[in-house]
């Protein structure tokens, strides 16, 4: 049974256990008491954005709704504003749990493919770890062209005014496209990150094995 097709029994603990083992801060999920303060505190928490707000996602995890949780686009709506964290009466690190669940869904390949924030998140990470520093122009272009060339041009046009404004204010450098900011020790950074991934993977695998 591959990770993607694992079936969680309803209202049993196995999906919760999976989350605890594989998701950053996942062992906090069970501490939720369903007060809903996180859901009410979320700035993007209008129904269309959040199909399932945080506290509901937690209940779904407890209820073993694995497929629905991991394929949901809900946690990708997190803006990292930390409102939920500071208000949670149980001190759940909700922002991190949302990121963690998203990361896990992404790792399993179950996250919605064209979820824009998922795409941007990956793009950002690749962009910044590539040279050690963010290349804002490439990042933007990468985002606009995620849905293909035509859509990219359209997106770019929509953002034209913004870009021109930034260019004029010297806050966007067109030459970033051909290099731009970077760290000197790129080799060291790559080696370091590679090692970090290795360690993390081995730890997660070990947990999965029990």
């Amino acid at each position, binding site marked *: 049974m591959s990770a993607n097709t694992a079936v969680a029994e309803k209202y049993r603990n196995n999906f919760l256990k999976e989350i605890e083992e594989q998701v950053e801060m996942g062992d906090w999920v069970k501490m939720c*008491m*369903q*007060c*809903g*303060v996180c*859901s*009410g*505190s979320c700035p993007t*928490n*209008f*129904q269309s954005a959040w199909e*399932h*707000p945080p*506290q*509901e996602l937690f209940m779904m995890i407890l209820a073993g709704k694995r497929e629905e949780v991991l394929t949901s686009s809900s946690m990708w709506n997190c803006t990292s504003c930390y*409102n939920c964290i*500071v*208000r949670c*009466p*149980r*001190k759940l690190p909700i922002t991190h749990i949302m990121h963690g669940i998203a990361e896990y869904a992404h790792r399993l390949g179950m996250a919605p493919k064209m979820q824009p924030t998922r795409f941007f998140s990956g793009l950002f990470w690749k962009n910044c770890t590539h040279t050690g520093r963010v290349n804002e122009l490439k990042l933007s272009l990468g985002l606009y062209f995620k849905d293909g060339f035509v859509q990219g041009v359209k997106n770019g046009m929509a953002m034209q005014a913004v870009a021109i404004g930034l260019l004029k204010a010297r806050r966007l450098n067109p030459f970033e496209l051909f290099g731009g900011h970077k760290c000197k020790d790129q080799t060291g950074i790559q080696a370091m990150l590679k090692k970090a991934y290795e360690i993390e993977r081995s730890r997660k695998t070990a947990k999965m094995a029990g």
Partner: protein
Amino acid sequence: MTEHVATNETILVVGGGISGMTAALEAAETGKNVVLVEKNPALGGRTSQLYRYFPKLCHPTCGLEINLRRLKGNPRVRLLTLAEVTGIEGSTGNYTATIKVRPRYVNENCTACGDCERAVEMKVDDPFNYNLSQHKAAYLPNAMAYPQRYVLDPAIIGTADAEKAKAACKYGAIDLDMQEETIQVKAGAVIWATGWQPYDAAKIQPYGYGRFKNVITSVEFERLAALQGPTGGKILRPSDGKEAKNIAFIQCAGSRDENHLRHCSRICCMASLKQTHYVREKYPEDGKSTIYYIDIRAIDRFEDFYQKVQADPSVNFIKSKVAKITEDEHGNPVCHGVDTEGYKRYTTPHDLVVLAVGMEPSVKGINIPGHIVADSSGFIEADPANGAVFGAGCASNALDVNRAVQSATAAALRAIQVVNKVAKAEA
């Protein structure tokens, strides 16, 4: 009431609220000498500031009257008001308490005629009304005040007003030279019945208490409803004096919250359920209550009361911890959050928001020997290491009145056991 001399067979009761009075009276009515110490100028404590009790909706002063009558008729209780225990030394069966007694500036000649009050101009905040109103600086703390004797606020001392008060008194009852005193009292056992204080609502930042005038606490709401309160029993909101008919009650304001109080304060759900009754009582036509809650804790026989309120169409229950409160252009507090039963987002304006604030034990900063054993919330635990210092009422746990009285009665027995042993040894 009398002035017996305290000995090792005396029981010291700290706190003159319902728990302390109960402990003192139960011990005295079993034949023990008691010294009862109250920090306020009058007995009664926090329950005497309530409009009604749940679940019978009767008035707390009704029980207070009986307790005061018991006290007036009992020579075994010696009462010290305006007095605070600052330290206790010794061990089981042999304690010495140091008690700071603040000046009342009024002696026992006072007949409570009220001439001094009429004579003075100065006004000060009235703590009996949680400072929602002011009273004269020469005042009787409340209509039921016992001792039935006036008090001068320290702020008046040294002013011309103070002299006016003195001049107005025909009975030589006003003594402006009264000084703070420190006295020592012997006791064989000590009952701590210092009660609770409402959690500081300003610390619950998202609710804007202190920023928004129309966000008040549950204890303040009791005073708004009370017939002798600052509004004469009308529920008027603080910002503009408008009738507050659409009222939100927010549960767990501080309680069950690791950012604030870890424990559940037990009484707040019932208190809010009770307070919805006030809304209905004052505005039978169009009063409306909304209770935002996590779990309604109407424990044991109180469940009946909950069911009655549930059946009331003017009361709406929303399972949700309110995320934050804002204020709209009309000064209405607006509750924001999500109803977790089926995920419904709300942004609801109310005339008034009442925060059901939690209970904090009033035992902090008191010098008790041998380091009193308390739980993580500061409530005194029953522990042999506490010697003959016994917690009673809300100093020992988050309790409703019924349970506080039980606790105080039990504490009285524990104290009697100690002084009986002393008596036996001394015989």
